[in-house]
């Protein structure tokens, strides 16, 4: 596996910087004043020239948010976030580019540096990219070829303008504006994100991908993603993210909504690599994200795959609401925490209809002084006859200063349902490590190999190119955790 030796090289390269993506890009930005109030919400909506109904929707969310408190049940600790000390709008000052040729060269260069070429000829074969910079979409590639088969792939701001009927119909239909504290905040102030619409019977001819980049300082990041697959449609979507290294924490509160109609299938993969903070826990992103998919149609499928290696704190539970008869949801997750990182992540599988199935495979890896919690809910409602769930939760501990916790909630209200839960906790055994080293692998490469082996069932769910990336990322993230 060349990936491992490449990883070795990557680690060597990283030895100084620690985090490869930690650079900052100088771009002329337009900021809203710090603080949050109704005027700021109006300002964001006005900047984006939104219709009245959307402004009203935002304001309603804002008012709901004011009455809410941030969730206290997760196993995470952080100082109180001062919501008045953040900017809620930051965008490159240049007018929105009409085509790739108009995109600010500094931005193109930055994405190039991140390995995400936006030039269509140079880009990864078969992957269309929406590049989101500080919550504003700066470029979307391959739009024309996608349009030929009727696929809409654009920024959500653009969708609001060009396809208002679709946005109005679906926005907030899976994650209501007042769903939870962070979702309400997002609904009030979201700035941009991706929009995907796959018409009936269409298999999206290429992978779609959004690449999120946080750049601005003291700025909350609130993206909104909406993906709709009509009957018989299918799409595979991947999200990647990085941020500069900063000493202060930065809030990222995104919302992702998926809607799958009859026999449609949506595969949503995330490789999350936000800046995790330094070895002492200084800085890093607070990643407080709500992701939910509705399997509305019969036999529809939604699959979440996530590889979470970044962020100082991850609070995230990609979920499936299984409304259509025979629909199925799956959640494949690798969450790796090192140093002082904290992750409280898992899923919710809500079985509403008969013969619905769900699969949960969670692999938690904790190293350093980190804390890693799997929190998962499987709820079988009375009408969900013969529903089935299989859950497997494995934890791997590296060192003895870290914590791993598994918190499964199972609520079963239909006797014909079958719910299975398996959990293991293990360590990398000395004999496994020695076996690898005796074959010539360095200690770090050996750990990387064993960790990748531990995560195999999840990694194989990722699209090929990204599986390789994810493997490297896992090894790099464990840097300094052994020896």
């Amino acid at each position, binding site marked *: 596996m060349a990936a491992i030796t490449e990883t070795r090289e990557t680690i060597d390269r990283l030895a100084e910087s620690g985090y490869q993506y930690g650079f900052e890009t100088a771009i002329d930005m337009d900021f809203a004043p710090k603080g949050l109030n109704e005027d700021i919400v109006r300002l964001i909506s006005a900047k984006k020239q939104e219709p009245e109904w959307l402004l009203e929707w935002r304001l309603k969310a804002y008012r709901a948010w004011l009455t809410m408190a941030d969730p206290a049940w997760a196993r995470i600790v952080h100082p109180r976030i001062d919501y008045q000390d953040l900017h809620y709008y930051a965008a490159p000052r240049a007018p929105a580019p009409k085509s790739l040729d108009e995109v600010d060269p500094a931005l193109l260069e930055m994405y190039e540096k991140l390995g995400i070429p936006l030039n269509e000829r140079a880009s990864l074969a078969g992957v269309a990219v929406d590049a989101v910079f500080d919550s504003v979409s700066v470029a979307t590639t391959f739009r024309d070829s996608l349009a030929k088969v009727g696929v809409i792939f654009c920024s959500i701001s653009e969708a609001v303008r060009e396809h208002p009927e679709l946005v109005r119909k679906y926005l907030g239909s899976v994650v209501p504006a007042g769903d939870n504290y962070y979702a309400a905040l997002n609904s009030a102030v979201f700035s941009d994100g991706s929009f995907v619409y796959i018409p009936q019977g269409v298999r999206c001819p290429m992978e779609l991908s959004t690449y999120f980049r946080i750049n601005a300082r003291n700025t909350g990041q609130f993206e909104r993603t909406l993906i709709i697959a009509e009957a018989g449609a299918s799409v595979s979507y991947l999200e990647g993210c990085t941020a500069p290294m900063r000493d202060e924490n930065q809030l990222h509160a995104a919302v992702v909504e998926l809607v799958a109609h009859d026999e449609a299938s949506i595969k949503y993969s995330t490789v999350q690599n936000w800046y995790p903070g330094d070895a002492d826990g200084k800085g890093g992103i607070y990643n407080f994200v709500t992701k939910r998919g509705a399997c509305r149609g019969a036999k529809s499928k939604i699959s979440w795959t996530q590889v979470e290696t970044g962020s100082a704190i991850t609070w995230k539970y990609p979920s499936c609401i299984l409304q259509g008869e025979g629909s199925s949801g799956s959640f494949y997750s690798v969450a790796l925490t090192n140093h002082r990182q904290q992750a409280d992540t898992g899923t919710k599988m809500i079985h509403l209809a008969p013969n619905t199935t769900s699969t949960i495979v969670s692999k938690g890896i904790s190293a350093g002084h980190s804390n890693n919690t799997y929190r998962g809910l499987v709820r079988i409602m009375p009408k969900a006859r013969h529903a089935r769930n299989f859950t497997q939760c494995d934890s791997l501990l590296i060192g003895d200063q870290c914590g791993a916790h598994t918190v499964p909630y199972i609520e079963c209200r239909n006797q014909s349902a079958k719910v299975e839960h398996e959990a293991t906790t293990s360590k990398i055994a000395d004999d496994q490590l020695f076996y690898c080293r005796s074959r010539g692998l360095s200690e770090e490469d050996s750990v990387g190999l*064993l960790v990748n082996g531990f995560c*195999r069932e999840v990694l194989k769910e990722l699209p090929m190119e990204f599986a390789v990336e994810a493997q490297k990322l896992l090894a790099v993230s464990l840097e300094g955790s052994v020896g």
Partner: protein
Amino acid sequence: MLEIKGLTATIEDKIILKGIDLVVPDGEIHAIMGPNGAGKSTLSYVLSGRDGYEVTGGSVLFDGQDLLAMEPEARAAAGVFLAFQYPVELPGVGNANFIRTAVNAVRKARGEPEMDTVAFLKEARAAIKRLSMPEDMLKRNVNVGFSGGEKKRNEILQMALLQPRLALLDETDSGLDIDALRIVADGVNAARGPNFSALVITHYQRLLDHIVPDRVHVLAGGRIVRSGGPELALELEAHGYAGLEAA
């Protein structure tokens, strides 16, 4: 050339090796026999650098280098290979990937170009054929669910692909059926040459019918208590180790 002088080692403060003297010149194969618990595996672990064993005295030179000062992976790069008495399972790690990663790690450390997947698979398939192993052994996870004999053959497969200069074979014959024994022996004999030497730890003379050793040593109570030619193995087979430990 491997030169062991006065090697003493402890594990958890228990003295296991009490002064081993042994020289294995290039191109030679030496057999080590001896009773259970004598310290044979301990010797192979100390030579390959396993943690937990404390060397309290003596020296080990390999091609003039101080082997004991090197990390296990550096020893592998220098050409030392240990076929484990109990090969270790690596869940989720594909066998082909594992061996290719190892081969390339060793090649890289030696300043040789890495092998691409196609070239590697070609060699691996050829080796698999020679060892009469089922081809799916490359696709399966390292040693996971392998039978005892398959695990031992997998060690020999790794040896064949890593092409070590010094192989330490710790009871690679134990648990093998007669055909497998011959296959494993053929694997070792194929590696024989002026740049290959081996320490073959075994309890059974029958392996030495197939791999004819240059020398046979008896390790008992942490010391080499007797050395001789191939006929020593026959003698041990007939009379056992009785009386040797005291010698």
